[in-house]
């Protein structure tokens, strides 16, 4: 199907060439990049305008804020999920992910966007004690400020860990840039590299630090997903008791993370001409992960669905009425199509997965699916009349809420600020880790064994 030539797109074996080619991504500051940074900043400011407009005009009506919460969850589920693509292969000692792990780390630094969207939500999120009685939440006896304070804190923590993860993985590359450039860039990189010269001790500390940060990022991400999903949607609905929900939410986050890495990797490969670095192998492996993620989506969804559908108690029926056949029925169908059916049926074919464009289109489908899912889960939950919050089950199903102009502005602003941050960070951090590729070249070699083509991969402890 594919020729050997195509299969063995391999990074250049000469370390010098690798270095030159990879650092060049930070140097290419053509007019296009400058222009797009301007446009993106403008759009991001529009997003902030949207948030402010919403805050000043609708801050006393909680039911209007569903879309803002959904956008927060969407950014959390896509961009913040991206580092998982680097974390999981690191733990499994998989070599294939090295060329794209830096991209995953870079996308992970957008945690600040989540924090900004969270700020106005703090005003509208109902307090723990409503009308003298404590509402149902995971903060059983905790002080009144609990969900607001801890949710914000967890988002800040995720943002910091994201930056720290990128920083520790980019440290050797800063040193490389320091040694291979001049002027301001040399000074910035020199400052950031903090005297990294590549001694044995420095490398072993670095490896340990990356490992720890990755594990830490993983746990923080799951934790944040748990908090945000419960506090910002589940506990707004009386009688919605769904133990799998945080995990399903995190799973959607990982699906979105893989999708965003595929999309950015595809763009980077195309724009910077890194065909030899980000090869079909990476897309193939990511395509498989996407396929698995879409299956996991349906599994988690069905695990919850069958229990509610079969249970038929009052609260079970209310769940179906609110989230499946209720105000967001069409969004649910779209979410099902784009999160599961389309990516699954697209990526099930090895021919599609084993290509560059196939997983890219799959990723676009899945990222839309994640968006629809978040809208389905958050908007109806926020539309529930706050006076019902103490009921045992939801007795009045809210009407469909359509987005207003502010919501659309915030969505545009949030998405473009993610791209903006990625572009700004890429001015100093190479899109593909130089040291990752050098190690990749050291540890894996294309070999021929009798008649079969293959790779010999080393697995150091």
């Amino acid at each position: 199907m594919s020729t050997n030539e195509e299969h063995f797109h391999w990074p250049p074996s000469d370390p010098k060439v690798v270095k030159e080619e990879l650092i060049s991504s930070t140097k290419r500051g053509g007019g296009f990049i400058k222009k797009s940074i301007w446009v993106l900043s403008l759009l991001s400011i529009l997003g902030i305008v949207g948030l402010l407009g919403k805050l000043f005009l609708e801050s006393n009506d909680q039911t209007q804020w569903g879309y803002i919460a959904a956008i927060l969850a969407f950014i959390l589920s896509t961009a913040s999920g991206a580092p998982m693509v680097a974390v999981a292969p690191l733990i499994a000692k998989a070599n294939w992910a090295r060329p794209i792990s830096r991209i995953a780390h870079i996308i992970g630094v957008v945690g600040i966007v989540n924090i900004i969207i969270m700020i106005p939500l703090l005003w509208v999120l109902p307090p723990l004690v409503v009308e003298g009685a404590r509402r149902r939440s995971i903060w059983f006896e905790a002080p009144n400020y609990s969900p607001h304070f801890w949710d914000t804190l967890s988002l800040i923590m995720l943002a910091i860990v994201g930056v720290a993860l990128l920083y520790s993985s980019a440290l050797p590359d800063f040193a490389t840039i320091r040694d291979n450039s001049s002027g301001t860039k040399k000074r910035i990189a020199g400052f950031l590299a903090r005297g990294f010269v590549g001694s044995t001790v420095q490398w072993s500390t670095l490896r340990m630090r990356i490992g720890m940060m990755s594990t830490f990022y993983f746990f923080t991400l799951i934790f944040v997903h748990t908090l945000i999903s419960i506090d910002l949607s589940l506990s707004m609905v009386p009688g919605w008791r769904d133990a799998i929900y945080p995990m399903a939410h995190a799973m959607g986050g990982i699906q979105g993370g893989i999708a965003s890495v595929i999309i950015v990797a595809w763009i980077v490969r195309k724009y910077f001409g890194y065909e030899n670095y980000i090869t079909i192998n990476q897309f193939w492996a990511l395509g498989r992960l996407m396929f698995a993620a879409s299956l996991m989506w349906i599994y988690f969804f069905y695990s919850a669905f069958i229990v509610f559908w079969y249970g038929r108690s009052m609260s079970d029926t209310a769940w179906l009425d609110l989230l499946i056949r209720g105000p967001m029925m069409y969004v649910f169908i779209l979410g099902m199509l784009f999160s599961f059916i389309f990516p699954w049926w697209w990526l099930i074919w090895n021919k599609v997965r084993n290509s560059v464009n196939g997983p890219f289109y799959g990723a676009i489908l899945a990222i839309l699916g994640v968006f629809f899912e978040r809208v389905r889960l958050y908007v109806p939950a926020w539309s529930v009349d706050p006076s019902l919050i103490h009921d045992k089950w939801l007795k009045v199903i809210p009407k469909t809420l359509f987005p207003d102009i502010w919501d659309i502005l915030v969505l545009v602003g949030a998405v473009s600020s993610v791209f903006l941050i990625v572009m700004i960070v890429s001015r100093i951090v190479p899109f593909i880790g130089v040291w990752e590729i050098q190690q990749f070249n050291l540890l894996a070699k294309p070999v021929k064994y009798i008649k079969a083509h293959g790779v010999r991969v080393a697995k150091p402890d």
Partner: protein
Amino acid sequence: MQQRDNENRLSQEYTNSVLLNGTLQTPKWWPYLVSILGFFVVIGFVLFGIQIKYGLGVTGLNRPIYWGLYITTFVFWVGISHAGIMISAILRLTQAEWRRPVTRAAEILTIFSLATALVFPLIHAGRTWRIVYWLIPYDASRGIWPNIRSPLFMDPIAISTYLTGSTLFLFVALLPDLAVLRDRTTGFRKGFYTILALGWRGNPRQWKMQVVGGILLSALMLPIFVSVHSIVSWDFAVTTAVEGWHSTIFAPYFVIGAVHSGVSAVVTMMALMRWGWGWNEFIRPEHFDALARLLTVVATAWLGFTFLELLFALYGLDAPEIALREMQIFQYPWNMLFLTFLLTGYILPVPMWIFKRIRTNIALMFWSSILVNIGMWLERFLIIVPGLARRTPFVFTWEAYSPSWFEWYILFWSFCWVTLLMLIFSRVFPLVPLFEQKESEVFSDDIKIGRATVPTIFREEEE
């Protein structure tokens, strides 16, 4: 005999002779162990007969605790059966090299534990002799099919599909080894292996078909692997009346718990295989190391699910549910069981596995994996029985449950039965796949990178 060839690999003749030492010869302890186990197994069958004759009154069950030790053990064995596909299919698809020596053991553990699990609903049912209505729907005189809505009907379907698939999977993986046995036996056994080996000669086409078959079966078995325990969990989760059961997390929670207990059972088996047959060069500490790493991840995920399950039990702030959890966690004797469950399921073994020294220590790994399975059995018990013994608003139905010796013996019987089947299997077929072992010798190698010596693996590029 030459142990190593000139590339310092274990030679193929040596591999054959050592790994077939349980099949072509009889280990000294084998006849004794088999006859003791056989004795216990026969007693179990007799007791089962007695139960059929006189009714389920011989158990400690009552109203409302209708399900007890039998169902717990059923869930436990279904859980153990997740070892096989986890080890051989998932690790095969993810190309984990260290799976190779344990695939066969994991698969037969799957098959025998599933077969045992399938027996438990029969033992548990009130009228076993009418089970044909339930499991085999061909009974034209009734004019009704079984109720497809019932998870108890989906169970036998899922389990028997899984059993069929696993058996095929095992058979495909056995083919090359059967041919080896055919060439090394005489008389009746030769005939037996000749028929089973299906004319395997090891030509490239046969190998290719075998690999394709294995990969296809791995991929096809995955959904079944997940669905089996999910359906078992829905036996409980769809029940609105029992507060502790009606939880959406049950399906993935049960599956991950099953992987936890199944992989631990494989660790136990690996240690026993080392001790029983002396396959120290094939089942090496690094295999224990890799499995323990996998187990650490799985166990931590499982703990997360346990935590979420408990969190959402309290989240609703419903009095009956909180009362149930209070009983399950704080009241004697449940509190002792709960403590043991937490200790053995996670707190004792998993921190142990952080240290590489313990991960590569066979005896410690053996005991810690046993601990895990004690914990996992208790987990199922603590879900099923306190859920039923809950304090409903109807105070006149409150009951306690103490299993009768009869039920305990059937539990013990199931362990004897699975072990017996495996021992008999080991006398007929090799427990460690010979061809996988040889392939891994060829595929893995040590190379020098700078000053370090690093193990490497050859990965074939798929066309």
